[in-house]
């Protein structure tokens, strides 16, 4: 019987058991490895291990020698919200080059960025439900995400990694039926939010699983520099689209949904979840206003410089992606390519929160917490 005693003999005399969650685990949203120290089912410590998806984004940007060749790689950071990643980078480059971008380009960018925000939140919400055992909402939400990807396919030719925005413009103009497609999507999508709320958000089991789990107090959120839905879930009204507007976000009328602790404690997993659901509605409002204001005519490539060579200097631009504050810090030494590109990725920051908010919970809660902070490993490792 010696052979079967291995589990106990290796850790004999210890009350605690160390267990690896990941990198091949169904609920770590990619290749994340969590070293859990368990006392029974209770987590006494957690150590996130990253680096399984590291692709040297920053080093590549230094070596490539061309500012526009960095854009496809920004897509691959947070691959479920590629448009938002591009948006941040091109905004930073345009501020550096002091380019005035045409109206039509700005409107199209805002529309695709908000559509991408919806698509990304749908994936985040769906995967969160999947983590908690609710399989069906995931597929309902994917049907809606599919409609967005179809529009993006018409627009850019790609469904996941678009390489659509260029410095000073867009790769090409949107197709003629873009406006009707988007308007149709907005119309059909709105009732689905209610359906989602009926099926998942206010489901009693779902609330029991997420309320009071992984409570992130406002102070801890500040200390860890949390942003996006994670920070807003703790009741802080902070959205870069309002607080530090970039692009043309100051023209639109929308609200910042924040967590209120209505199902449990302020800053629990349910609050972070419901902030995302409510942001869907706000994104729809922005899209509607942008569709109304979008000029019908205009050359989307006219402002794009032929040769990108910024003056020596540096620029930091932060934008609001679905996951939080994405910052690009670009240093130029007046050559064809960047001297340094540093990305401040929200998922990376949020991953470090895990240890602070998950100790003392059960294994099942760990899954709920990882799902509720909605990390994308491509962005964590870059």
């Amino acid at each position, binding site marked *: *019987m010696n*052979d*079967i005693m*291995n*589990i106990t003999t290796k850790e004999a005399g210890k009350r605690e*058991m160390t*267990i690896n969650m990941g990198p091949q*685990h*169904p*609920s770590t949203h990619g290749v994340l490895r969590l070293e859990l120290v368990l006392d029974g*089912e209770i987590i006494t410590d957690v150590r996130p291990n990253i680096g399984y998806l590291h692709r040297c984004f920053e080093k590549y940007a230094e070596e490539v020698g061309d500012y526009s060749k960095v854009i496809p790689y920004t897509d691959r950071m947070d691959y479920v919200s590629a448009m938002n990643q591009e948006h941040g980078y091109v905004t930073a480059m345009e501020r550096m080059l002091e380019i005035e971008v045409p109206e039509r380009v700005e409107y199209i960018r805002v529309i695709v960025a908000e559509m991408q925000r919806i698509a990304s939140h749908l994936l985040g919400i769906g995967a969160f*439900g*999947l*983590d*908690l*055992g*609710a*399989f*069906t909402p995931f*597929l*309902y939400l994917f*049907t809606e995400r599919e409609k967005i990807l179809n529009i993006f396919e018409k627009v850019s030719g790609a469904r996941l990694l678009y390489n659509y925005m260029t410095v000073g413009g867009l790769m090409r103009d949107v197709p003629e039926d873009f406006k009707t497609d988007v308007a149709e999507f907005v119309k059909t999508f709105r009732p689905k939010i209610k359906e989602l709320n009926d099926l*998942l958000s206010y*489901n009693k*089991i*779902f609330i*029991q*699983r997420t309320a009071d789990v992984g409570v992130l107090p406002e102070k801890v959120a500040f200390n860890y520099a949390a942003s996006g839905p994670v920070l807003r879930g703790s009741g802080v009204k902070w959205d870069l689209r309002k607080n530090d507007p970039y692009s043309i976000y100051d023209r639109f009328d929308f609200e910042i949904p924040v967590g209120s602790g209505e199902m449990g404690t302020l800053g629990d997993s349910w609050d972070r979840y419901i902030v995302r659901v409510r942001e869907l509605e706000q994104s729809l409002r922005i899209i509607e206003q942008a569709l109304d204001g979008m000029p019908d005519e205009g050359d989307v490539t006219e402002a794009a410089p032929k040769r990108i060579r910024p003056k020596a200097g540096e620029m930091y631009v932060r934008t609001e992606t679905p996951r939080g504050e994405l910052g690009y810090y670009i240093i130029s030494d007046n050559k064809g390519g960047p001297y340094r590109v540093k990305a401040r990725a929200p998922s990376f920051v949020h991953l470090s929160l895990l240890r602070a908010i998950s100790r003392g919970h*059960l*294994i*099942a*809660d760990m*899954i709920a917490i990882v799902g509720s902070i909605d990390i994308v490993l491509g962005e964590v490792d870059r």
Partner: protein
Amino acid sequence: MSELLGIIGPASAILVHALIPLTIILVYALAAIWGERKIAGFIQDRLGPHRVGGWHGWAQSIADLLKLLQKEDIIPTDASRFLYKFAPFMMFTASYAAFAIIPFSSGYIGSMINIGVFYLLAVTSLLTISVIMGGWASNNKWSLIGSMRSAAQMVSYEVPTIASVLTVVIVAGSLNLMTVTELQSGNDILGFLPNWFIFQNPFLIITFIIFFISILAEAHRVPFDLPESESELVAGYQTEYSGMRWAMFMLAEYADMLLLSLLGVTLFFGGWNSPFGEFMAGPIWGFFWFMGKGLFLVVIMMWIRWTLPRYRVDQLMHICWGILIPASFVNLILVALWEVIF
């Protein structure tokens, strides 16, 4: 039928009695796995399997079975080989053996013993042991956690299951499921309703609800599928299993689901009795009604699975010890009082 076989010889009779439930289980399992995928598909706004075999992909589970048969039999190096190999078969045997006392129709029951219900509850307890055996022998921490959860869950939920079965036994006054079914013949309640126990006594409706929730947990179905909760414990006690051994676990699980549904049908929904009195009655129709009612409960279990999220382990225990067990015992007294008074 059983008298006729007695003439040919007791040995062949035993063989046939063993083969009939086995055939039913195997055919049911293939159909149920396909059905579950189809139901999941329809609930999730898609089509489900639609290629293998032509008509609505009916041969999908057969194709999967063939695939599993061809798979390499992997046994982890540090596993306890005997227990590891034995666990899936023991699990299947436990649920298969329990089919012996299920009255499939008025003309067929595997074994007419007076302590039928008691036997069933005793034999299905072996499921817990085989789950622990498989999880422990795999020498994998996820399997171990899964099997420990499973042990706690199945032992706990056996209490409300037994209490609700006991409630029906009080009303029926017999442990023999054939007798229990015969007591539910006829259509006398309010002039048209069948004499099923669920209609006979208002408190038995509560008993059925408790029973149904408990069998969801006993059969590891959502929202109580914690032992194999895939998004938490990888695959629970099944993590290291592959190929046919894994298929045996799945088969046992589906067989268990059917067994508990059929037990529910026998205890509450009149077993093989036709809902229309003498209309469409008889041994063959009896089998039809019995399986029909049983599969209806199975479909409800599938429906629940694809609708609800999963409970957490402490909430699961609270539901059992905090709600179901007290409720089932209070209900037992109320049912008994009703029987005494009316």
